[in-house]
């Protein structure tokens, strides 16, 4: 350790008063290289002051001593040191004030920088600079607060606008900016935003309404089109008639779904048009489009089920501004039923015309037949009576027989004519036609060996209410017709069957009932063409050479079947043959078995009242009846007959009553006779038949009908029939 010197070394102080020595270390702290403590601090100066006031220094005698000078210097330095210490203390105070003030300012600025401009600091300080700084900080906070408030206001406004616009974009058009803001820009923005939303909402509402209106219109149009019975369309103007739009009626009309036809997805409408009608359709449309007019046409289509349908179409072209055809729009309806009805109406009209013509001819023929029959009756009666009175060896016998034979031919002719002309059935009996037809066939085939006859009879054939004699005549006429059509022989096929005709078909053929017995007579003869076939039922129409046919056979058949409430029609193909078909209404009654009168057992008894206005008939018939053994009472008119019957009814067995008489007709006379005696037996006789008149009388209880002219044989059979069938 370095040797320390003491102040005593300099001052030679030996006093124990030296305060420094009192420290115990023996070293003065005020002299360099001595042991000192804190050279620069206040303690030094205090110690130095103590040293300077040290009594030991008073012992120094010379002023010029270096020590004294040094002491003076020290004193001077101490003065300066004291002054310096004061200033240091001031500076220290200022420094402290500044540090405190700056810390305050720093904290305030820190808060401001963190976004809180609400901070304020007291503007007091000993340091003016700090005061000024605090004032600036507070002014800055105030200014910044306004900016921050505005920034917040902007942020808040922006957030609200964002929210409202988001709600609007999501479809909530009721969203509005509601917050008020002191910022003018935000207020204006709010107003504009709300106005814009309102306009958009209005626009959208308008569009929505327009869209709804359009949808409603579309729905109405679709419903309207769907309810229409036909198909509404819009199509391209091309050969396929490519459909761009079709209504729901498409399915019903064509069998295809709407989407099948649209854009030819499955089939084009052009393919549905009947091949034979396509060109007509194209030509019609082209012609209309050239003139820019609408078109109407009827044609056929083939639907999905391959059914042919008749359609009616109306359409019009849709043109562009330069006149080019853009599309065709129109409407198509199914008129198949209408077409069918038209066809049926045409058929019915033809039938009506035919029926009217037949009726007129029938009336004419009936009138002629009536007069002719009366004449024949007179001739035949006289011939018959003459023959009865002469022997077969008489020279006139053969001639009279020839006359009788020719009169019979004439009578057959008029019978045929009357068969066509008469208006009703005469003697109706419930009959099984199988038996009747079999009998007629046997009779016919016995004489026509060259024909192969076959039958197909339905077992349990329904009965019919017919005049058996008339139906027998019809069948014979058909057989004869077939035989004449097969000069070299052939097949004659006769069938019977039960038929149920539905109401539609029954209406078509003017039939009153649905249950019928069907008879077909088919031959393998030469056949006829269609034109001939149309006229075969006309009286006197014949294709036979002169002398082979009268032209009355089929006409008679037609009239008889018609008067039985049935129909007869013929179908023929040249070179193949002809088939006649008869439909007769079925009856629910049981068939009546025919009682065959026995010619040999005819027993005449009582009187017969003969009533006829024709004198010739009265004479001939009276002779015939007397020949049969009857007593005959004659009356030339109805009132006389009634009077006679009233007086002699117990003696009168039978009355033969003419139908047509001038004063009182047969029907009225019959009613009066019946009034007198409910069980009176009356046979109607006539050369003529009024429409249904004879049938009416028959239904009122008349026992029989005899057609003039009648032979003695006819008369005998009829009387026997009446008397034995009671």
């Amino acid at each position: 350790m370095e040797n320390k010197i003491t102040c005593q070394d300099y001052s030679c102080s030996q006093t124990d008063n030296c305060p420094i020595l009192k420290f115990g270390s023996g070293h003065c702290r005020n002299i360099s290289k001595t042991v000192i403590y804190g050279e620069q601090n206040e303690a030094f100066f205090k110690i130095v002051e103590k040293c300077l006031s040290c009594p030991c220094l008073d012992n120094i005698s010379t002023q010029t001593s270096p020590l004294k000078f040094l002491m003076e210097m020290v004193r001077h330095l101490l003065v300066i040191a004291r002054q310096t210490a004061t200033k240091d203390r001031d500076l220290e105070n200022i420094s402290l004030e500044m540090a405190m003030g700056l810390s305050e300012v720093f904290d305030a600025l820190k808060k401001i920088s963190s976004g809180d401009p609400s901070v304020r600091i007291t503007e007091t300080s000993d340091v003016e600079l700090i005061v000024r700084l605090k004032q600036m900080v507070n002014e800055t906070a105030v200014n910044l607060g306004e900016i921050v408030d505005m920034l917040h206001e902007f942020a808040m406004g922006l957030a609200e606008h964002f929210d409202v616009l988001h709600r609007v974009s999501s479809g909530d058009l009721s969203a509005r900016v509601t917050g008020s803001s002191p910022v003018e820009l935000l207020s204006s923005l709010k107003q504009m935003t709300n106005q814009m939303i309102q306009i958009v909402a209005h626009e959208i509402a308008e569009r929505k309404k327009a869209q709804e209106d359009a949808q409603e219109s579309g729905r109405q149009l679709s419903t309207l089109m769907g309810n229409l019975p036909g198909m509404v369309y819009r199509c391209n103007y091309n050969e396929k008639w490519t459909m761009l739009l079709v209504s729901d009626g498409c399915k019903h009309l064509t069998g295809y779904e709407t989407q099948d036809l649209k854009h030819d997805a499955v089939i084009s409408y052009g393919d549905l048009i009947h091949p034979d009608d396509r060109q007509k359709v194209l030509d019609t449309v082209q012609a209309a489009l050239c003139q820019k007019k609408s078109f109407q046409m009827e044609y056929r289509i083939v639907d999905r089920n391959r059914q042919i349908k008749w359609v009616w179409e109306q359409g019009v072209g849709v043109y562009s501004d330069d006149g080019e055809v853009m599309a065709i729009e129109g409407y198509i309806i199914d008129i198949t039923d209408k077409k069918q009805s038209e066809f049926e109406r045409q058929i019915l009209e033809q039938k009506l015309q035919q029926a009217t013509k037949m009726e007129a001819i029938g009336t004419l023929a009936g009138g002629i037949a009536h007069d002719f029959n009366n004449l024949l009756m007179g001739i035949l009666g006289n011939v018959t009576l003459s023959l009865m009175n002469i022997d077969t060896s008489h020279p006139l016998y053969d001639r009279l027989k020839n006359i009788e034979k020719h009169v019979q031919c004439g009578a057959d002719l008029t019978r045929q004519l009357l068969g066509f002309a008469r208006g009703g059935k005469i003697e109706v009996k419930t009959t099984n036609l199988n038996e009747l037809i079999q009998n007629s066939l046997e009779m016919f085939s016995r004489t026509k060996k060259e024909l192969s006859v076959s039958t197909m009879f339905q077992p349990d054939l329904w009965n019919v209410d017919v005049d058996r004699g008339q139906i027998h005549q019809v069948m014979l006429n058909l057989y004869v017709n077939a035989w004449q059509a097969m000069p070299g022989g052939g097949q004659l096929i006769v069938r019977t069957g039960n038929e149920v005709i539905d109401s539609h078909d029954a209406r078509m053929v003017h039939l009153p009932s649905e249950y019928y017995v069907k008879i077909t007579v088919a031959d393998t003869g030469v056949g006829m063409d269609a034109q001939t076939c149309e006229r075969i039922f006309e009286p006197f129409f014949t294709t036979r050479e002169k002398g082979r046919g009268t032209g009355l056979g089929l006409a008679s058949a037609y009239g008889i079947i018609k008067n039985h409430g049935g129909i007869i029609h013929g179908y023929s193909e040249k070179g193949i043959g002809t088939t006649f078909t008869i439909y007769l209404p079925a009856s629910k009654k049981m068939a009546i078995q025919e009682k065959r009168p026995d010619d040999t057992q005819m027993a005449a008894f009582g009187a017969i009242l003969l009533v006829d206005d024709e004198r010739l008939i009265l004479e001939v018939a009276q002779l015939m009846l007397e020949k049969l053994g009857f007593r005959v009472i004659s009356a030339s008119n109805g009132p006389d007959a009634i009077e006679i019957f009233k007086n002699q009814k117990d003696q009168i067995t039978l009355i033969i009553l003419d139908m047509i008489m001038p004063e009182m007709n047969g029907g009225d006379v019959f009613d009066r006779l019946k009034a007198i005696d409910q069980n009176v037996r009356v046979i109607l006789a006539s050369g003529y038949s009024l429409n249904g008149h004879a049938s009416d009388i028959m239904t009122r209880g008349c026992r029989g009908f005899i057609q003039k002219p009648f032979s003695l044989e006819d008369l005998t059979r009829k009387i026997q029939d009446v008397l034995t069938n009671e």
Partner: protein
Amino acid sequence: MATEILDTLGVKCPQPILKIAVKAPTMKPGDILEVWGDCPTFERDVRIWCQRLGKVLVSVQDDGEIAKRIQIQF
């Protein structure tokens, strides 16, 4: 109802409000959005936002000296 967290800690105002505004469209009615924030005007800004936009401020929870957790129901 879902609860979602939006952390805006350290983000200066008024950015938390802008973040809430952006988040809001994803929230469904009844959902809770819990926002964490520590800016000085955080609570005041959220209150004003809720008031102006018609949202329910469910709770405000202090989380330390500055930070807060605020629950908003949509």
